[in-house]
Protein backbone atom coordinates (compact mmCIF):
# COMPACT_ATOMS: atom_id res chain seq x y z
CA UNK A 1 0.00 0.00 0.00
CA UNK A 2 1.45 3.34 -0.89
CA UNK A 3 0.38 6.90 -0.73
CA UNK A 4 1.58 9.81 -2.77
CA UNK A 5 3.01 12.67 -0.76
CA UNK A 6 0.31 15.10 -1.70
CA UNK A 7 -2.46 13.29 0.14
CA UNK A 8 -4.21 15.79 2.31
CA UNK A 9 -3.62 13.69 5.34
CA UNK A 10 -2.67 10.02 5.02
CA UNK A 11 -3.92 9.45 8.57
CA UNK A 12 -7.37 10.66 7.62
CA UNK A 13 -7.40 8.49 4.50
CA UNK A 14 -6.35 5.49 6.57
CA UNK A 15 -9.11 6.30 8.99
CA UNK A 16 -11.74 6.28 6.24
CA UNK A 17 -10.18 3.14 4.75
CA UNK A 18 -10.45 1.40 8.15
CA UNK A 19 -14.02 2.60 8.49
CA UNK A 20 -14.82 1.16 5.05
CA UNK A 21 -13.14 -2.13 6.00
CA UNK A 22 -15.24 -2.25 9.19
CA UNK A 23 -18.42 -1.41 7.28
CA UNK A 24 -18.30 -3.92 4.42
CA UNK A 25 -20.15 -7.19 4.69
CA UNK A 26 -17.47 -9.79 3.85
CA UNK A 27 -20.12 -12.08 2.37
CA UNK A 28 -21.15 -9.46 -0.14
CA UNK A 29 -19.60 -8.24 -3.39
CA UNK A 30 -20.06 -4.54 -4.12
CA UNK A 31 -19.92 -3.05 -7.58
CA UNK A 32 -19.62 0.72 -7.35
CA UNK A 33 -19.37 2.83 -10.48
CA UNK A 34 -17.45 6.08 -10.49
CA UNK A 35 -19.29 7.88 -13.26
CA UNK A 36 -16.69 10.54 -14.01
CA UNK A 37 -13.36 10.04 -15.75
CA UNK A 38 -11.77 12.54 -13.37
CA UNK A 39 -12.57 10.10 -10.56
CA UNK A 40 -11.11 7.21 -12.57
CA UNK A 41 -7.89 9.18 -12.98
CA UNK A 42 -7.73 10.02 -9.28
CA UNK A 43 -8.48 6.42 -8.22
CA UNK A 44 -5.61 5.00 -10.29
CA UNK A 45 -3.25 7.87 -9.63
CA UNK A 46 -3.61 7.46 -5.88
CA UNK A 47 -3.80 3.69 -5.82
CA UNK A 48 -7.17 3.72 -4.07
CA UNK A 49 -7.91 0.17 -5.22
CA UNK A 50 -5.12 -0.91 -2.90
CA UNK A 51 -6.70 0.64 0.17
CA UNK A 52 -10.20 -0.72 -0.48
CA UNK A 53 -11.36 -4.18 0.59
CA UNK A 54 -11.23 -6.74 -2.21
CA UNK A 55 -14.97 -7.21 -2.33
CA UNK A 56 -15.47 -3.58 -3.39
CA UNK A 57 -15.16 -3.52 -7.16
CA UNK A 58 -14.85 -0.13 -8.78
CA UNK A 59 -16.41 0.00 -12.23
CA UNK A 60 -15.28 2.85 -14.46
CA UNK A 61 -18.12 4.85 -15.87
CA UNK A 62 -18.70 6.64 -19.17
CA UNK A 63 -17.79 10.14 -17.94
CA UNK A 64 -14.86 10.81 -20.26
CA UNK A 65 -15.91 12.98 -23.21
CA UNK A 66 -13.37 11.82 -25.79
CA UNK A 67 -13.83 8.19 -24.76
CA UNK A 68 -17.56 8.04 -25.46
CA UNK A 69 -17.32 9.90 -28.78
CA UNK A 70 -17.76 7.25 -31.49
CA UNK A 71 -15.22 7.07 -34.31
CA UNK A 72 -17.91 8.08 -36.80
CA UNK A 73 -18.31 11.47 -35.12
CA UNK A 74 -14.53 11.97 -35.13
CA UNK A 75 -14.53 11.26 -38.87
CA UNK A 76 -17.51 13.58 -39.38
CA UNK A 77 -15.72 16.38 -37.55
CA UNK A 78 -12.54 15.87 -39.54
CA UNK A 79 -14.41 16.17 -42.85
CA UNK A 80 -15.01 19.82 -41.90
CA UNK A 81 -11.26 20.43 -41.97
CA UNK A 82 -11.20 19.21 -45.57
CA UNK A 83 -13.42 22.05 -46.84
CA UNK A 84 -11.65 24.99 -48.50
CA UNK A 85 -10.84 28.04 -46.40
CA UNK A 86 -11.81 26.30 -43.21
CA UNK A 87 -10.09 26.19 -39.83
CA UNK A 88 -11.10 23.40 -37.47
CA UNK A 89 -10.41 24.00 -33.78
CA UNK A 90 -10.56 21.53 -30.91
CA UNK A 91 -9.38 20.90 -27.35
CA UNK A 92 -6.00 19.27 -26.80
CA UNK A 93 -7.61 15.99 -25.70
CA UNK A 94 -9.28 15.70 -29.09
CA UNK A 95 -6.06 16.20 -31.07
CA UNK A 96 -4.87 12.64 -30.48
CA UNK A 97 -8.17 10.80 -30.85
CA UNK A 98 -7.96 8.43 -33.81
CA UNK A 99 -10.46 8.72 -36.63
CA UNK A 100 -10.49 6.27 -39.52
CA UNK A 101 -8.01 8.38 -41.49
CA UNK A 102 -5.87 9.42 -38.56
CA UNK A 103 -5.96 11.76 -35.59
CA UNK A 104 -6.56 15.51 -35.91
CA UNK A 105 -2.84 15.93 -35.16
CA UNK A 106 -1.90 13.63 -38.06
CA UNK A 107 -4.29 15.37 -40.44
CA UNK A 108 -2.76 18.69 -39.38
CA UNK A 109 0.68 17.32 -40.22
CA UNK A 110 -0.67 16.43 -43.66
CA UNK A 111 -1.69 20.05 -44.23
CA UNK A 112 -5.19 20.47 -42.78
CA UNK A 113 -5.68 23.69 -40.82
CA UNK A 114 -6.56 22.19 -37.45
CA UNK A 115 -5.70 24.20 -34.34
CA UNK A 116 -5.76 23.35 -30.68
CA UNK A 117 -7.60 25.76 -28.40
CA UNK A 118 -8.05 25.86 -24.64
CA UNK A 119 -11.42 27.58 -24.73
CA UNK A 120 -14.27 27.90 -27.23
CA UNK A 121 -13.72 31.66 -26.86
CA UNK A 122 -10.26 31.15 -28.37
CA UNK A 123 -11.93 29.53 -31.38
CA UNK A 124 -14.21 32.55 -31.67
CA UNK A 125 -11.16 34.79 -31.48
CA UNK A 126 -9.59 32.89 -34.38
CA UNK A 127 -12.79 33.50 -36.37
CA UNK A 128 -12.56 37.23 -35.63
CA UNK A 129 -8.94 37.32 -36.73
CA UNK A 130 -9.58 35.31 -39.92
CA UNK A 131 -12.65 36.88 -41.51
CA UNK A 132 -12.06 35.16 -44.85
CA UNK A 133 -12.02 31.69 -43.26
CA UNK A 134 -14.81 29.58 -41.84
CA UNK A 135 -13.83 28.63 -38.31
CA UNK A 136 -15.46 25.62 -36.69
CA UNK A 137 -15.12 24.52 -33.07
CA UNK A 138 -15.29 20.74 -32.52
CA UNK A 139 -17.23 20.81 -29.25
CA UNK A 140 -17.10 17.86 -26.88
CA UNK A 141 -17.89 17.46 -23.22
CA UNK A 142 -20.58 16.91 -20.65
CA UNK A 143 -22.55 19.56 -18.78
CA UNK A 144 -19.34 20.97 -17.32
CA UNK A 145 -18.30 22.21 -20.75
CA UNK A 146 -21.57 22.67 -22.66
CA UNK A 147 -22.50 26.02 -20.99
CA UNK A 148 -19.17 27.49 -22.17
CA UNK A 149 -19.98 26.53 -25.75
CA UNK A 150 -23.48 28.00 -25.36
CA UNK A 151 -22.12 31.32 -24.07
CA UNK A 152 -19.57 31.39 -26.90
CA UNK A 153 -22.35 31.02 -29.50
CA UNK A 154 -24.31 33.79 -27.78
CA UNK A 155 -21.20 35.96 -27.83
CA UNK A 156 -20.64 35.26 -31.54
CA UNK A 157 -24.21 36.37 -32.16
CA UNK A 158 -23.80 39.51 -30.04
CA UNK A 159 -20.62 40.44 -31.88
CA UNK A 160 -22.18 39.71 -35.29
CA UNK A 161 -19.46 37.19 -36.17
CA UNK A 162 -20.74 35.12 -39.08
CA UNK A 163 -17.78 32.87 -39.92
CA UNK A 164 -17.90 30.87 -36.68
CA UNK A 165 -19.66 27.56 -36.13
CA UNK A 166 -19.78 24.69 -33.67
CA UNK A 167 -19.77 20.96 -34.43
CA UNK A 168 -21.76 20.03 -31.38
CA UNK A 169 -21.02 16.74 -29.63
CA UNK A 170 -22.07 17.70 -26.13
CA UNK A 171 -23.60 14.83 -24.20
CA UNK A 172 -25.54 14.60 -20.97
CA UNK A 173 -24.66 12.19 -18.20
CA UNK A 174 -28.07 11.16 -16.90
CA UNK A 175 -29.29 9.17 -19.97
CA UNK A 176 -25.97 7.29 -19.99
CA UNK A 177 -26.51 6.32 -16.33
CA UNK A 178 -30.01 5.19 -17.19
CA UNK A 179 -28.68 3.08 -20.10
CA UNK A 180 -26.21 1.46 -17.73
CA UNK A 181 -28.94 0.77 -15.17
CA UNK A 182 -31.16 -0.73 -17.89
CA UNK A 183 -28.42 -2.95 -19.28
CA UNK A 184 -28.83 -6.59 -18.22
CA UNK A 185 -25.09 -7.31 -17.96
CA UNK A 186 -24.27 -4.40 -15.65
CA UNK A 187 -25.26 -4.82 -12.05
CA UNK A 188 -24.17 -1.68 -10.22
CA UNK A 189 -24.88 -1.30 -6.49
CA UNK A 190 -24.25 2.43 -6.25
CA UNK A 191 -22.76 5.43 -8.01
CA UNK A 192 -20.06 7.91 -7.10
CA UNK A 193 -21.67 10.87 -8.87
CA UNK A 194 -19.61 13.30 -10.95
CA UNK A 195 -18.21 16.40 -9.27
CA UNK A 196 -17.94 19.22 -11.75
CA UNK A 197 -20.80 18.08 -14.00
CA UNK A 198 -22.99 18.30 -10.90
CA UNK A 199 -21.78 21.82 -10.14
CA UNK A 200 -23.77 22.72 -13.28
CA UNK A 201 -26.68 20.25 -13.12
CA UNK A 202 -27.04 20.06 -9.35
CA UNK A 203 -28.06 16.82 -7.65
CA UNK A 204 -31.75 16.60 -8.59
CA UNK A 205 -31.21 14.92 -12.01
CA UNK A 206 -29.92 11.82 -10.18
CA UNK A 207 -33.04 11.39 -8.06
CA UNK A 208 -34.49 8.86 -10.54
CA UNK A 209 -31.57 6.51 -9.83
CA UNK A 210 -32.60 6.30 -6.19
CA UNK A 211 -36.34 6.47 -6.78
CA UNK A 212 -36.75 4.20 -9.82
CA UNK A 213 -33.77 1.88 -9.50
CA UNK A 214 -33.19 1.84 -5.75
CA UNK A 215 -29.49 2.68 -6.04
CA UNK A 216 -27.58 5.26 -3.99
CA UNK A 217 -25.81 8.16 -5.68
CA UNK A 218 -23.20 10.17 -3.80
CA UNK A 219 -21.86 13.18 -5.68
CA UNK A 220 -18.20 13.39 -4.71
CA UNK A 221 -15.12 15.54 -5.11
CA UNK A 222 -11.89 14.40 -6.74
CA UNK A 223 -9.47 14.16 -3.85
CA UNK A 224 -8.75 10.66 -2.60
CA UNK A 225 -10.49 11.52 0.64
CA UNK A 226 -13.58 12.75 -1.22
CA UNK A 227 -13.85 9.53 -3.21
CA UNK A 228 -13.29 7.33 -0.15
CA UNK A 229 -15.95 9.25 1.77
CA UNK A 230 -18.32 8.91 -1.19
CA UNK A 231 -17.81 5.15 -1.19
CA UNK A 232 -18.37 4.97 2.58
CA UNK A 233 -21.60 6.97 2.25
CA UNK A 234 -22.80 4.53 -0.44
CA UNK A 235 -22.01 1.57 1.84
CA UNK A 236 -23.94 3.14 4.71
CA UNK A 237 -26.97 3.61 2.47
CA UNK A 238 -26.77 0.04 1.14
CA UNK A 239 -26.57 -1.40 4.64
CA UNK A 240 -29.43 0.75 5.88
CA UNK A 241 -31.51 -0.45 2.93
CA UNK A 242 -31.72 3.14 1.69
CA UNK A 243 -31.33 4.68 -1.72
CA UNK A 244 -30.98 8.43 -1.94
CA UNK A 245 -28.90 11.15 -3.54
CA UNK A 246 -26.30 12.64 -1.23
CA UNK A 247 -23.81 15.42 -1.84
CA UNK A 248 -20.31 14.85 -0.50
CA UNK A 249 -18.98 17.76 -2.62
CA UNK A 250 -21.23 20.47 -1.21
CA UNK A 251 -18.32 22.91 -1.11
CA UNK A 252 -18.53 23.11 -4.93
CA UNK A 253 -21.86 21.53 -5.90
CA UNK A 254 -25.07 23.46 -5.14
CA UNK A 255 -28.05 21.12 -4.81
CA UNK A 256 -29.88 23.03 -7.57
CA UNK A 257 -26.87 23.51 -9.82
CA UNK A 258 -25.76 26.65 -11.62
CA UNK A 259 -28.81 28.61 -12.90
CA UNK A 260 -26.99 30.89 -15.41
CA UNK A 261 -25.25 27.87 -16.94
CA UNK A 262 -28.52 25.92 -17.20
CA UNK A 263 -30.21 28.97 -18.75
CA UNK A 264 -27.44 29.36 -21.35
CA UNK A 265 -27.75 25.69 -22.32
CA UNK A 266 -31.55 25.97 -22.48
CA UNK A 267 -31.28 29.02 -24.75
CA UNK A 268 -28.88 27.52 -27.29
CA UNK A 269 -29.30 23.74 -27.20
CA UNK A 270 -32.03 21.18 -27.52
CA UNK A 271 -31.98 17.43 -26.95
CA UNK A 272 -31.21 15.23 -29.94
CA UNK A 273 -33.73 12.41 -30.39
CA UNK A 274 -30.80 9.98 -30.09
CA UNK A 275 -27.00 9.97 -30.21
CA UNK A 276 -24.42 7.24 -30.57
CA UNK A 277 -22.06 6.58 -27.66
CA UNK A 278 -19.00 4.46 -28.05
CA UNK A 279 -19.64 1.21 -26.23
CA UNK A 280 -23.16 2.08 -25.17
CA UNK A 281 -24.71 2.36 -28.63
CA UNK A 282 -27.55 4.74 -29.46
CA UNK A 283 -29.10 6.39 -26.40
CA UNK A 284 -32.24 8.46 -26.77
CA UNK A 285 -32.20 12.11 -25.67
CA UNK A 286 -28.62 11.82 -24.50
CA UNK A 287 -26.94 14.63 -26.42
CA UNK A 288 -27.39 18.26 -27.35
CA UNK A 289 -27.77 19.88 -30.74
CA UNK A 290 -27.95 23.56 -31.60
CA UNK A 291 -31.47 24.98 -31.79
CA UNK A 292 -32.71 26.02 -35.26
CA UNK A 293 -32.71 29.65 -34.10
CA UNK A 294 -28.90 29.38 -33.95
CA UNK A 295 -28.53 27.35 -37.16
CA UNK A 296 -26.14 30.01 -38.49
CA UNK A 297 -23.64 28.68 -35.92
CA UNK A 298 -24.40 24.98 -36.39
CA UNK A 299 -21.69 23.20 -38.38
CA UNK A 300 -24.14 20.38 -39.12
CA UNK A 301 -26.41 22.90 -40.86
CA UNK A 302 -23.54 24.67 -42.66
CA UNK A 303 -21.30 21.86 -43.88
CA UNK A 304 -22.24 18.70 -45.66
CA UNK A 305 -21.28 16.09 -43.09
CA UNK A 306 -21.51 12.43 -44.07
CA UNK A 307 -22.88 11.13 -40.78
CA UNK A 308 -20.88 7.95 -40.93
CA UNK A 309 -21.05 5.05 -38.52
CA UNK A 310 -17.76 3.28 -37.97
CA UNK A 311 -17.03 0.22 -35.88
CA UNK A 312 -14.21 0.26 -33.34
CA UNK A 313 -10.76 -0.63 -34.69
CA UNK A 314 -10.37 -4.35 -35.24
CA UNK A 315 -9.48 -6.14 -32.04
CA UNK A 316 -10.04 -3.12 -29.79
CA UNK A 317 -12.61 -3.72 -27.07
CA UNK A 318 -13.21 -0.11 -26.04
CA UNK A 319 -16.94 -0.72 -25.80
CA UNK A 320 -16.64 -3.57 -23.31
CA UNK A 321 -14.16 -1.57 -21.20
CA UNK A 322 -16.44 1.47 -21.29
CA UNK A 323 -19.37 -0.58 -20.07
CA UNK A 324 -17.27 -2.03 -17.27
CA UNK A 325 -17.65 -5.56 -18.64
CA UNK A 326 -13.90 -5.82 -19.22
CA UNK A 327 -11.05 -4.30 -17.23
CA UNK A 328 -8.51 -2.42 -19.38
CA UNK A 329 -5.80 -5.13 -19.32
CA UNK A 330 -8.33 -7.72 -20.48
CA UNK A 331 -8.54 -6.01 -23.88
CA UNK A 332 -6.51 -7.87 -26.48
CA UNK A 333 -4.69 -4.74 -27.63
CA UNK A 334 -4.01 -3.23 -24.20
CA UNK A 335 -0.40 -2.28 -23.66
CA UNK A 336 0.77 -3.90 -26.87
CA UNK A 337 -0.64 -2.31 -30.02
CA UNK A 338 -2.63 0.22 -28.01
CA UNK A 339 -0.59 2.35 -25.61
CA UNK A 340 -0.46 6.06 -24.69
CA UNK A 341 2.20 6.74 -27.34
CA UNK A 342 0.12 5.08 -30.07
CA UNK A 343 -3.47 4.98 -28.87
CA UNK A 344 -5.82 2.89 -30.98
CA UNK A 345 -8.89 3.52 -28.85
CA UNK A 346 -9.96 6.79 -27.26
CA UNK A 347 -9.77 5.35 -23.74
CA UNK A 348 -6.00 5.29 -24.14
CA UNK A 349 -5.88 8.97 -25.17
CA UNK A 350 -7.33 11.02 -22.36
CA UNK A 351 -5.91 10.99 -18.84
CA UNK A 352 -9.53 10.41 -17.80
CA UNK A 353 -9.80 7.30 -19.93
CA UNK A 354 -9.71 4.06 -17.96
CA UNK A 355 -7.05 2.50 -20.20
CA UNK A 356 -4.65 5.46 -20.05
CA UNK A 357 -5.08 5.73 -16.28
CA UNK A 358 -4.55 2.00 -15.83
CA UNK A 359 -1.52 2.02 -18.11
CA UNK A 360 0.12 4.99 -16.42
CA UNK A 361 -0.43 4.01 -12.82
CA UNK A 362 -1.73 0.52 -12.12
CA UNK A 363 0.45 -1.28 -14.63
CA UNK A 364 3.50 0.49 -13.32
CA UNK A 365 2.58 -0.30 -9.73
CA UNK A 366 2.07 -3.96 -10.58
CA UNK A 367 5.44 -4.08 -12.30
CA UNK A 368 7.07 -2.54 -9.23
CA UNK A 369 5.35 -4.95 -6.89
CA UNK A 370 6.11 -7.99 -9.02
Amino acid at each position, binding site marked *: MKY*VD*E*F*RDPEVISGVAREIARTVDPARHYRIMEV*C*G*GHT*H*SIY*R*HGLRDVLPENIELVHGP*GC*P*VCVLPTGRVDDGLTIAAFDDTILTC*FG*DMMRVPGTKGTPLELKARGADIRM*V*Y*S*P*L*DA*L*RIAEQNPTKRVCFFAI*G*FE*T*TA*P*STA*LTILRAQALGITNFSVFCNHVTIVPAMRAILDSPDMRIDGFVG*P*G*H*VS*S*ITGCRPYEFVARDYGRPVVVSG*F*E*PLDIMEGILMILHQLHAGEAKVENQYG*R*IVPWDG*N*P*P*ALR*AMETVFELRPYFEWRGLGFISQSALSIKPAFAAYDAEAIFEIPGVRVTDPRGAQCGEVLKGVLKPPQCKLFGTECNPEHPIGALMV*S*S*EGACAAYYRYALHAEAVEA
Partner: protein
Amino acid sequence: MCLAIPGQIVGISAEQPLLARVDVGGVQRNVNIGLLEEGAATGDWILIHVGFALSKIDEAQAADQLRMLRAMGEDKLAIEEVRGYSFADANGELNEIRR
Protein backbone atom coordinates in the same frame (compact mmCIF):
# COMPACT_ATOMS: atom_id res chain seq x y z
CA MET B 1 -10.69 17.84 -19.13
CA CYS B 2 -13.18 17.80 -16.34
CA LEU B 3 -10.78 19.31 -13.85
CA ALA B 4 -11.19 22.90 -12.81
CA ILE B 5 -8.40 25.39 -12.23
CA PRO B 6 -8.37 27.75 -9.24
CA GLY B 7 -7.54 31.40 -9.76
CA GLN B 8 -7.98 34.82 -8.17
CA ILE B 9 -9.64 37.76 -9.87
CA VAL B 10 -7.31 40.76 -10.06
CA GLY B 11 -9.54 43.03 -12.13
CA ILE B 12 -12.81 43.29 -14.03
CA SER B 13 -12.99 44.81 -17.51
CA ALA B 14 -14.64 48.22 -17.49
CA GLU B 15 -15.99 47.76 -21.02
CA GLN B 16 -16.86 44.10 -20.73
CA PRO B 17 -18.17 43.37 -17.24
CA LEU B 18 -18.25 39.65 -18.03
CA LEU B 19 -14.49 39.53 -18.50
CA ALA B 20 -12.23 39.25 -15.48
CA ARG B 21 -8.47 39.33 -15.27
CA VAL B 22 -7.41 36.27 -13.27
CA ASP B 23 -4.14 35.25 -11.70
CA VAL B 24 -3.35 31.55 -11.77
CA GLY B 25 0.01 30.73 -10.22
CA GLY B 26 1.50 34.02 -11.45
CA VAL B 27 0.05 33.74 -14.96
CA GLN B 28 -2.57 36.39 -15.68
CA ARG B 29 -5.22 35.90 -18.34
CA ASN B 30 -8.82 36.89 -18.96
CA VAL B 31 -11.68 34.56 -18.20
CA ASN B 32 -15.41 34.88 -18.76
CA ILE B 33 -17.48 35.23 -15.58
CA GLY B 34 -20.89 35.01 -17.26
CA LEU B 35 -21.72 31.74 -15.51
CA LEU B 36 -21.51 33.23 -12.01
CA GLU B 37 -25.01 33.97 -10.72
CA GLU B 38 -24.00 36.73 -8.33
CA GLY B 39 -21.19 38.10 -10.47
CA ALA B 40 -17.70 38.51 -9.07
CA ALA B 41 -15.35 41.16 -7.78
CA THR B 42 -11.64 41.76 -7.57
CA GLY B 43 -10.14 39.51 -4.92
CA ASP B 44 -12.65 36.69 -5.42
CA TRP B 45 -11.36 33.15 -5.92
CA ILE B 46 -12.93 31.13 -8.71
CA LEU B 47 -12.76 27.72 -10.38
CA ILE B 48 -12.01 28.00 -14.09
CA HIS B 49 -12.92 25.54 -16.84
CA VAL B 50 -12.13 26.14 -20.55
CA GLY B 51 -11.94 29.90 -20.07
CA PHE B 52 -15.08 30.30 -17.94
CA ALA B 53 -15.48 30.71 -14.19
CA LEU B 54 -17.63 27.79 -13.02
CA SER B 55 -18.06 28.78 -9.40
CA LYS B 56 -16.79 31.01 -6.66
CA ILE B 57 -14.74 29.38 -3.95
CA ASP B 58 -12.83 30.60 -0.91
CA GLU B 59 -9.09 30.87 -0.59
CA ALA B 60 -8.73 27.61 1.34
CA GLN B 61 -10.70 25.73 -1.33
CA ALA B 62 -8.49 27.28 -3.99
CA ALA B 63 -5.44 25.97 -2.14
CA ASP B 64 -7.11 22.54 -1.87
CA GLN B 65 -7.86 22.53 -5.58
CA LEU B 66 -4.32 23.54 -6.49
CA ARG B 67 -2.88 20.83 -4.27
CA MET B 68 -5.21 18.32 -5.89
CA LEU B 69 -4.11 19.34 -9.38
CA ARG B 70 -0.53 18.85 -8.20
CA ALA B 71 -1.44 15.44 -6.78
CA MET B 72 -3.02 14.48 -10.10
CA GLY B 73 0.09 15.63 -11.96
CA GLU B 74 -2.00 18.20 -13.79
CA ASP B 75 -0.79 21.48 -12.30
CA LYS B 76 1.57 22.21 -15.18
CA LEU B 77 -1.17 21.35 -17.65
CA ALA B 78 -3.48 23.76 -15.84
CA ILE B 79 -0.97 26.63 -16.08
CA GLU B 80 -0.38 25.76 -19.72
CA GLU B 81 -4.12 25.91 -20.34
CA VAL B 82 -4.49 29.31 -18.68
CA ARG B 83 -1.44 30.60 -20.53
CA GLY B 84 -3.15 29.43 -23.72
CA TYR B 85 -6.31 31.51 -23.26
CA SER B 86 -5.84 34.02 -26.03
CA PHE B 87 -9.23 35.71 -26.19
CA ALA B 88 -9.27 39.37 -25.22
CA ASP B 89 -5.58 39.40 -24.43
CA ALA B 90 -3.84 42.32 -22.78
CA ASN B 91 -3.25 44.09 -26.11
CA GLY B 92 -6.80 43.50 -27.20
CA GLU B 93 -10.12 44.28 -25.70
CA LEU B 94 -9.18 44.31 -22.08
CA ASN B 95 -6.86 47.27 -21.79
CA GLU B 96 -8.78 49.05 -19.12
CA ILE B 97 -9.00 47.13 -15.92
CA ARG B 98 -10.94 48.35 -12.92
CA ARG B 99 -8.96 47.53 -9.84
